[in-house]
């Protein structure tokens, strides 16, 4: 159901000297405008089945900064984020105010997209953790990749905080790791080196490694 075609809501009607005929139109306009506004993101005021006041969805308009929260409150909002020369709108969570923990937490990160064509010997996936951490994971076969290299795509990782490689069928061949930055401030690749004392040739036989890499993007 749609409301009448009306002008904008007027918060200061009726005037003290308005005739009832004028006020009646003003009332109708305000009730109609209120109805139309409330129907966006919310169950309509006159819905016959659902509960008016419940939300249907939440469209979050981009904020310049996070809202203040009081003790006991937290908040969700969207804010512009410029990161690695990309400007996007991301979801933020803010702890309760009035305490040291009342800071904002970035809940989503960059824009999700496919890392692109999978290089030979690599299945690479990624997801995000609150606070701007990125988790890369998948399977890599170093004997099939160029220069024993694992690419951390998308290239938004500024600091590698953790990694782990587990050989699928050949335990004991877990590599040692060297990080490389091919772009300023960004860790773009991990290069695997064979464990000291290993004489296997090639350096990494046809072994698949389950890998996980956790990095910070802020």
């Amino acid at each position, binding site marked *: 159901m749609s409301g009448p075609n009306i002008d*904008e809501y007027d918060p200061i*009607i009726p005037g003290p000297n308005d005739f009832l005929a004028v006020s009646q139109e003003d009332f109708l306009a305000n009730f109609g405008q*209120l109805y139309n506004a409330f129907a966006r993101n919310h169950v309509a005021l006159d819905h016959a089945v659902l509960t008016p006041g419940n939300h249907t969805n939440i469209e979050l*308009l981009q904020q310049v900064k996070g809202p203040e929260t009081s003790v006991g409150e937290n908040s969700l909002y969207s804010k512009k984020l410029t990161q690695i020369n990309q400007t996007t709108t991301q979801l933020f969570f803010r702890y309760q105010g009035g305490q040291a*923990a009342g800071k904002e*937490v970035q809940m989503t990160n960059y824009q999700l997209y496919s890392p692109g064509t999978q290089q030979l010997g690599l299945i690479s996936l990624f997801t995000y953790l609150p606070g701007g951490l990125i988790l890369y994971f998948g399977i890599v076969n170093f004997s099939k990749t160029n220069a024993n290299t694992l690419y951390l795509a998308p290239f938004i990782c500024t600091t590698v905080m953790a990694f782990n490689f587990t050989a699928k069928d050949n335990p004991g061949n877990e590599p040692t*790791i060297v990080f490389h930055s091919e772009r300023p401030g960004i860790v773009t690749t991990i290069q695997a080196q064979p*464990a000291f004392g290993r004489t296997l040739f090639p350096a990494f036989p046809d072994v698949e490694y389950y890998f996980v890499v956790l990095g*910070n993007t802020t």
Partner: protein
Amino acid sequence: MSYNTAIPQAASKRVISQKQIKANFTAIFNAFAKNHAKLGPTDTQGKHNMMILRPQALNPATSPTQAAIYNKKVATIPNLFYRPSNNQTPIQMTYPSIGVNPNASTQYSFVAGPFVVYTGVLINPASGTVVNVLPATTLRYVGLGVSNFIGGTSIVETHAIPTNIAGNSFTIRYEVPLSGSSRNIFYLAIGN
């Protein structure tokens, strides 16, 4: 002036009702502007600027076609919860704190559950080094990675493993070399 649900009265004079009705329209306008784009601009009114969530004492009921996002306290700290449809078990989406300073050698974040995900790097720790992660949870997973290994003259396994995983601590173990070597060890741990 707060919203008055009992106006206008049938016996009220017009001059009284006019002020009351105007006050109610103003109160509606001001209340709606909280959390929402203000009433007026037809392209944005009704959309949200934010959602400031007041703590709920109870989990909200959800029907088979509903889901809910809400604020509920864990101990004294309000956290974000999600309740799936049909009154399924609520899921805590946030942890009471987070530490993701990119310059810190140890960091932690969280995932729904909540589980706390810890990361950190130790510069050439001795085998047997005990790591205590904070804030304390019960660790369910610990994985280690070795980087920047510099070997001595002996054959040394560069593989490090976590041992004695209990509570919020674990011990780093690796084969101690006969001669000098060094390594950095990264850890990824998950607890709840």
